[in-house]
Structure formats: structure tokens, C-alpha cells
């Protein structure tokens, strides 16, 4: 597992849930603009931040993510008018609940990145990677996931499923 080495060798795995209309396009712009940024982020494109169930974040952690980014259109820019407003309320509550049960809020980044903000996306990614790297691998969650069940079997993490270590 990637967290087994020294802290300075740790490359966090970040899952990003981004909306199709703003942040995904913004991230695309960052790429076509050849902006340099950390390569630790796997992007999952969804129609809208309103589509992102907080369970997505839980599942990402469960499957081995060290950090999660949720990003979408700025307020008043939502392609579906209000999806980001709903998401804002939902994630405000999820963030507090997650912190309450001991998931460090530093592992989660929420941002608005528009289609023209390639540079902001780069900063969001770099800052998140740096912050999560400082926090270290999310070993607590991984230990929880890997606890043997009653039959003695351990749950497959994504590395187990793919037979390799990532990234």
C-alpha cells in the first residue's frame, strides 16, 4: 500500500467529483493550457454537483482514497439553475457530520471552479494534494475496511481487486 513508505514518499490518492459543465471543462482547460499540477487526482465526471451523493465520498474513502475533491459551478452559474445550491447545503452538513465521526475535514476539498478557471483548478489540486500529503495516508479508514469479517475474509480494496498498487 502506498502509505507504507516514509512520509516523504507518500503520494496521496485523490478522487475528484466534478460537474460536467464547469469544473470538468475547467480541468480540461488546465490540461490544454499545459499547466503543471500534481498527478494524484482521478476525476469522476458527473452531470452536476447536485448529483453527488455524500455516499460517493464515503465510497471513495472506502475504496482507498486519501482525499476527495468536490467541485462544480459557481453559485448562479449552475447549468441546471440550482443544483450547486442544493449541493452546498448537503455538503455543509456532510462535512460537519464527517468531522464529528472523526474524518478529518482536511481530506475533503469543496470548490467552485468555472470552465475558464484552469489555473484555479490547478491550485485546488495542488493545495489538496499538499494538504492530504501532510495528513498522511488515510490508514484509519483502510484498517477499518480491511478488518476481517466473521468468515475471516478481508475486503478487497482497489489495489487488491486490480492486483497492483496505485498510483
Amino acid at each position, binding site marked *: 500500500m502506498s502509505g507504507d513508505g516514509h512520509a516523504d514518499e507518500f503520494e496521496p490518492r485523490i478522487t475528484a467529483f466534478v460537474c460536467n459543465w464547469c469544473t470538468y471543462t475547467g480541468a480540461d482547460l488546465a490540461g490544454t493550457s499545459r499547466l503543471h499540477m500534481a498527478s494524484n487526482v482521478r476525476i469522476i465526471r458527473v452531470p452536476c454537483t447536485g448529483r453527488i451523493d455524500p455516499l460517493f465520498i464515503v465510497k471513495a474513502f472506502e475504496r482507498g482514497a486519501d482525499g476527495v475533491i468536490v467541485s462544480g459551478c459557481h453559485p448562479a452559474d449552475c447549468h441546471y439553475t440550482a443544483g450547486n445550491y442544493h449541493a452546498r447545503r448537503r455538503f455543509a452538513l456532510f462535512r460537519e457530520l464527517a468531522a464529528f465521526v*472523526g474524518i478529518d475535514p482536511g481530506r475533503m476539498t469543496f470548490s467552485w471552479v468555472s470552465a475558464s478557471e484552469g489555473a484555479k483548478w490547478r491550485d485546488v489540486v495542488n493545495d489538496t494534494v499538499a494538504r492530504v500529503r501532510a495528513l498522511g495516508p488515510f490508514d484509519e479508514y483502510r484498517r477499518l475496511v480491511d478488518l476481517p469479517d466473521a468468515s475471516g475474509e478481508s475486503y478487497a480494496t482497489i489495489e487488491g481487486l486490480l492486483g497492483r498498487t496505485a498510483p
Partner: protein
Amino acid sequence: MTEPHDLTTEAPEATTGAPGAAREAAPDRYPETGAPDETGDLHGVARHVLAKGEADVVIGWEEGRRGVRPAFVTTPDDVERLVFDTRCVHNLATYLNPRRRQVAALGRPAVVIKGCDAKAVAGLLREAQLSRDQVVLIGVRCGGVLEVAELDEPADLTPETVSPRCYRCDNREPHLVDYLVGDPQAEPPRPPKTVDERVAELEDAPVAERWHFWVEEFSRCVRCYACREVCPLCICERCVADKSVPQWIDAASHPRGNLSWNLTRALHLAGRCVECGECERACPSGLPLMLLNRKLAQAVRQRFDYVAGDDPEVPAPVGDYRLDDAEEFIR
């Protein structure tokens, strides 16, 4: 039911009625009852409701083998079974949940509700799971219930015995009802440690300690879903926890799925939970679910200025939004 709140101004006395169609029947409402005490009055209302055909079944509480239990009374002669005292912890509004098809088969219900239960009814109305004219609501004035209610006799509430969730109850006299019974009740005593204090204590602990605490608690979850089944506001026809394709929540009683499930349950009730405490009471493993509920209620109050009440016209905070909602956590 047009004016859910005129009860507060019109019915301060113990035995008066309520708004809506029932009011016309007021003069001969309780022909057989003269008893001014709370239970007698409940009997009178229940008898009236059944005799006049306002409802086919009165759902209330009766003596059981261990404390009181929910009762389904279908004939006027049976209403003497009904009781109300500090052991009546159950939120009977859960029987109005549309998932309860067996209850629906009993016909038009009249439900005896405390203040917290009235909030749950309001939740069902708010979310269009129920229409007000489908149900007769018999409100009881409540001064709190016991934390451990499996007693043969009603007991007085003391700081040690009162359910902590009753502290600072803002709805000791339910609105929204057709009938209101019982005498005005005093405020419940303050428990040695309030739910808020327990939440604050946990919040003051370092993040790793909180994680440890909850992992330990959730590890005892047997995934019986009693918390979901008893909840008046868990209304989904098909729960995400029961879906296997894709399986968002691992079904086994294992810490990984237990965490997902308990986070999901709490979050799906955020801004909807009325803090009736039924999930925690029903939990066979004794998980402190009210701490999660309370934490979210605090967040909802602080962020969205919303407190669960029994006015169905006030929209719930999740599923609603304001343009100027705080977003200090978003960059």
C-alpha cells in the same frame, strides 16, 4: 384542516377541542366522560372518534407486559385500554408512514401524538406522504417521558429517569391536532448531562479520538435496520442500504458498511429528524444515534436557521436553499 396553529389561542383548557371539521361536534363530544383527568379525557375523545366514524382505528398506548405498548383500538367499547403517561415513549406517527401497509389496511386512523410526534406528522405532511384529512390527530400534552420506560407503573420524571432528549422540549402541547387532551405539563427536568453537552464533549475531543469512539460504537451495529424501520420519517420505498446493484453500502455487519450505513441514515434525516429518539430506543446494540441526530440538528439550526417544528408549511432545509447560504468551507 386550514389553520394548524389556532389551537394555541383557542384551546388552553384541558378538555377543549381543536380546529377543523371536528369542532362542530363540540357540544356532545364526550357524552360519556366526566372525568377531568388526562386518561379519562383521552378515552372520551377516542370513544367519540370511533363512535362518530371519524376514524376506524385509534392508535394509542396500552398496558403491556413490559411497560406500555402501541395499541390499535377499533371499537368504542375498547377505548378503556388506552393510557397515557411517562412510559409512552413510542412515536406512533410512525404508523402513518406510507410504508406501513398493514396499518393502512385498518382504515382511517386516529393517532395519539405527543409534541415530538406531531413534528413527525408535520414531516410526513410536508413531504406529501400524508394528507391532513386522511388522519385524525389526538394530541396529548406531554411533560417528558422516561428514558427507560419498561415499567409496570407510571413513574415520575427525575433528572435521572427523564429521557435526555426531552430537555427543553419546545412542543409540550402539540399543535396541528384535531383534539387536545390532558393538563398543561411542566417542563421536563434537566438531565445530569444533556444531549448537547455530550455532543460538545465529543466535539472537543481530537479527531482521532472521535474516529475511535464512533468506529467502536458502529462496530456493534448488527445492521438489523431497526432504526430505519421505527423511524417515522424513513419513508423510502426502497432504501439505498438494500440496493445491491450498485451496492453503495456493504450489507454485512462489518465496520466498513456500518460506518456508511450510519452516516447515511443520519444524513438522510438531516433537517428532517424530529429527535423523537425512536432510532436509539429501537437499537438493540445501544448505539448513541441521538448524538448524530443532535449534531446535525445543531448544524441545521446554525447554518440554515431551521428547527424542526410541527408546522408543515415551513419547508425542510435540505431540498431547499438560499442564495446566500454560508459557504466558508468552499474555496
